[in-house]
């Protein structure tokens, strides 16, 4: 490696990993009590399970109270195939992991439709059922008496078994920690966080929410299963006592205490958990009490966990150096890039949108009644009307959040009436929300990157990230260009929460632009903005139209609407009452009576 490359960007993850790997290689050869090697093994496989839970709960916001069940699936899947079928241990562990993933995918069916309470309930119940099966299906599992003589990793050298196991489990852990870091840093993490923020929002940027939710659930279950599979081969004994709800709680404690949604949280949390377990071993009588107390205290007093505490400590003590991010300072956009942005847009020529006879009722109340609107390509089309006229319902029907009772929606000649939100996003529909939708936990730049299309394979992304310390470089540059285009470039590293309202609105627009829309739906784009900001938005909208995007907007500020729109549709009580250019609308007597009022003449 050339010095140049070394100096150019120091990879912030290199040092901790190198240190970890050195300790890991050396440890079994130190003159330590075998107990410590055993403890380290336990640490490795427990951490694997906790990493999975952290991804599930910390990133996607889905609750599982049944990880012990998947852990048990992995343990029995691996122990039984190795013991009864004579499979080699690594293959058996892989099978156990796969079995748990399968179980997780099955439970993920629930995750597709519900979350929060229902998922917590379902996972709790499934964990309980699996626990009972482990206890009572003695013919298979041996119950509490357990399976003994489960093959261990020996390669003919029983004395070195623990060391082999140590290296095997440890290597698995390092790979998984790397994967977890990669997920946190890049597109996976962003998409999962978007789902956690709001599912409708995530779908509107083109994320297939159900697939992602089921996928991350299966992945977390697989990691729990892998933890269990390693556990089964550690000492050669598997008894059903290990898989009670207490284990699920312990894993949750590790994830929560360490710091949910952080990269180092699981590691810290698992260390703390094993510490607690060692302490409790002496006073087992109070075990549950201590678990409960920790859970409640941490959630109430230190919800950010050990990782959060460590973070604020190092900041306070001034220990943390200037933040080294993956981003090479702020990426400037050259004039060419800004105009290239413009050039690229043209590839996505705006398209027509045709609403035909749309109706929608909410329990008998007609919100939208037989509305037909033709939106021409490359125009700015305004939907106006008094509150309750049905504007938001129409926007939501175009975006696919609501399905119309009758009528069709055609996008550039293609009937999209029955497509889901994410599918419509893929066809070039982007939108902003009346009540701003941003991912608060990641930077401004990452929020824009959420909209950008993924440009190379995940495998390539992973190796770029691992060896070149560069992740999604093209996407990053494109997002930066858009931020610069909107004048937000200098804020790229900030969190959205640190921005004033007007900038947050612009940021949301930036994300929508990043989706390279053919149709852009803006729901009250200047609500809450001052006159100056409104003017800027108007400029942006006109520029976007120049670039070829078709824009549909809902807005109450008439001055703004009249200045940016090419055509207007006026709604009242769910009906289309007028349609035409701003000039025609201002003269239309029905509109004046229903909405504008006579005051418009001044």
């Amino acid at each position, binding site marked *: 490696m050339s010095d140049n490359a070394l100096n150019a960007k120091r990879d912030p993850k290199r040092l901790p990993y190198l240190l970890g790997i050195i300790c890991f290689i050396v440890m079994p050869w130190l003159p330590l009590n075998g107990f410590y090697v055993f403890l380290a093994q336990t640490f490795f496989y427990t951490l694997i399970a906790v990493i999975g839970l952290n991804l599930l709960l910390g990133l996607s916001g889905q609750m599982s109270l049944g990880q012990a069940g998947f852990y048990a699936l992995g343990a029995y899947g691996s122990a039984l195939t190795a013991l009864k079928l004579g499979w080699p241990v690594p293959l058996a562990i892989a099978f156990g992991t796969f079995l748990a993933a399968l179980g997780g995918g099955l439970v993920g069916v629930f995750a597709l439709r*519900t979350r929060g*309470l229902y998922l917590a*309930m*379902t996972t709790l*119940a499934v964990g*309980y059922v699996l626990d009972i099966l482990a206890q009572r299906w003695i013919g298979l599992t041996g119950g509490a008496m357990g399976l003994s003589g489960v093959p261990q990793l020996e390669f003919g050298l029983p004395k070195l078994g623990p060391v082999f196991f140590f290296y095997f489990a440890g290597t698995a852990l390092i790979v998984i920690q790397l994967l977890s870091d990669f997920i946190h840093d890049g597109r996976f993490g962003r998409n999962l966080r978007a789902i956690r923020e709001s599912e409708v929002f995530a779908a509107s940027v083109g994320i297939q929410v159900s697939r992602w939710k089921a996928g991350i659930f299966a992945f977390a279950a697989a990691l729990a299963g892998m933890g269990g599979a390693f556990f089964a081969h550690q000492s050669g004994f598997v008894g059903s006592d290990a898989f009670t709800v207490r284990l699920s709680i312990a894993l949750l404690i590790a994830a929560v205490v360490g710091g949910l949604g952080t990269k180092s949280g699981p590691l810290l949390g698992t260390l703390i958990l094993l510490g607690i377990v060692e302490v409790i071993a002496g006073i087992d009588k109070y075990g549950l009490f201590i678990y409960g107390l920790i859970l409640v205290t941490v959630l109430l007093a230190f919800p950010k966990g050990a990782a959060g505490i460590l973070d604020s400590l190092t900041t306070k003590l001034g220990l943390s150096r200037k933040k080294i991010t993956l981003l090479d300072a702020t990426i400037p956009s050259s004039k060419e890039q800004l105009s290239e942005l413009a050039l690229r847009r043209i590839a996505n020529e705006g398209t027509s949108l045709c609403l035909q006879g749309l109706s929608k009722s909410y329990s008998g109340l007609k919100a939208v009644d037989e509305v037909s609107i033709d939106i021409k390509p490359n125009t700015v089309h305004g939907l106006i009307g008094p509150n309750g006229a049905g504007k938001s319902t129409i926007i939501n029907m175009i975006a696919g959040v609501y399905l119309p009772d009758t009528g069709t929606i055609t996008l550039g000649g293609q009937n999209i009436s029955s497509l889901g939100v994410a599918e419509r996003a893929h066809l070039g529909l982007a939108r902003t929300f009346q009540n701003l939708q941003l991912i608060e936990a990641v930077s401004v730049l990452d929020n824009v990157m959420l909209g950008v299309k993924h440009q190379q394979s995940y495998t390539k992304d992973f190796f770029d990230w691992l060896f070149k310390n560069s992740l999604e470089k093209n996407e990053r540059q494109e997002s930066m260009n858009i931020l610069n285009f909107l004048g937000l470039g200098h804020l790229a590293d900030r969190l959205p929460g640190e921005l004033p309202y007007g900038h947050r609105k612009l940021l949301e627009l930036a994300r929508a632009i990043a989706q390279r829309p053919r149709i852009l739906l803006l729901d009250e784009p200047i609500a809450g903005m001052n006159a100056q900001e409104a003017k800027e938005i108007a400029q942006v909208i006109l520029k976007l139209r120049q670039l070829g995007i078709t824009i549909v907007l809902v807005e109450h500020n008439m001055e703004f609407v009249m200045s940016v729109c090419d055509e207007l549709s006026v709604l009242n009580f769910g009906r289309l009452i007028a349609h035409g250019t701003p000039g025609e609308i201002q003269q239309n007597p029905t509109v004046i009576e229903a909405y504008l009022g006579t005051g418009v003449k001044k």
Partner: protein
Amino acid sequence: MQIGNIIQLLSGGLAMGAIYVLVALGLYITHLTTHRVNFGQGDFLMVGTFLMLLLRKVGAPLGVAIAATLVVLAVMGWLLERIAIRPLDRKKTSPVGAFSWILTTAGIALILQNVIELGFGKTSQYSAPLFSSQRDQVVQVLGAGLFVEEILVIVAAILIVAIFYAFMFHSRWGKNIQAVAFNPESAKLLGIHTDRVKTGVFIIAAILAAVAGILIGPLVTINPHMGLVLTIKALIVAAIGGFANPVGILIGGILFGIFESLSNYLDSGFGDLYPLLAALIIIAVKPSGLFSEGRADVR
């Protein structure tokens, strides 16, 4: 299977089903109002059962024991809301997201299990009968020997469910609760103390758990870890009713109890798992519950 046998199974299933309904109604009322439930609802029940056991052992008269149990549990419900639920609402950006309450209430449940275990030991115990003179007093109904205790538990449970419904739908308090459930902001504007209502529903839920705990005592053997199963079953019964339909909960709970009683009889090994699995499948297919229309509640 003889007719008598079936009647016996029905009576036992009905009694347990009635208990599930009581526990699930506690979950229903807090979910309706606050979108939160106590994941230790079953453990609250367990505490109620052991309190009764203790009070009766030290010779407290039945009425006093019941009253004391209800009061203690009411206080526990109040404390739970104040300690483990309300403080979380002030932290808008908790990393656990909007579901921290699941873990805090579960944490409290663990503490309760440990406390009771320290006080009473791990082994299963029997409570004294509430209504009959001895545990196995039997009456003949249609040629079947039924436990007096079971029948009276059913009657008591039905009465309490009726009182609950009258309270919910015909009292001013119940109307306040519904107003807060519908829209807390506008309820506040109408002069309803929404905070008090939110605490109130957790007190009611705890009292329902206490009632169920008092009634279940003589029917089953009790131990400090019995709560988890009851929490799971009550959650599932509430979910069969879509967490929003008290009539659905009533029907769902009773069907669940009867199904369980029959499947336990037919398969003593895994019988208790069948109704759980069946209910899970129902919820997977129809997340809004068996007795409600429309979409799942995905809040």
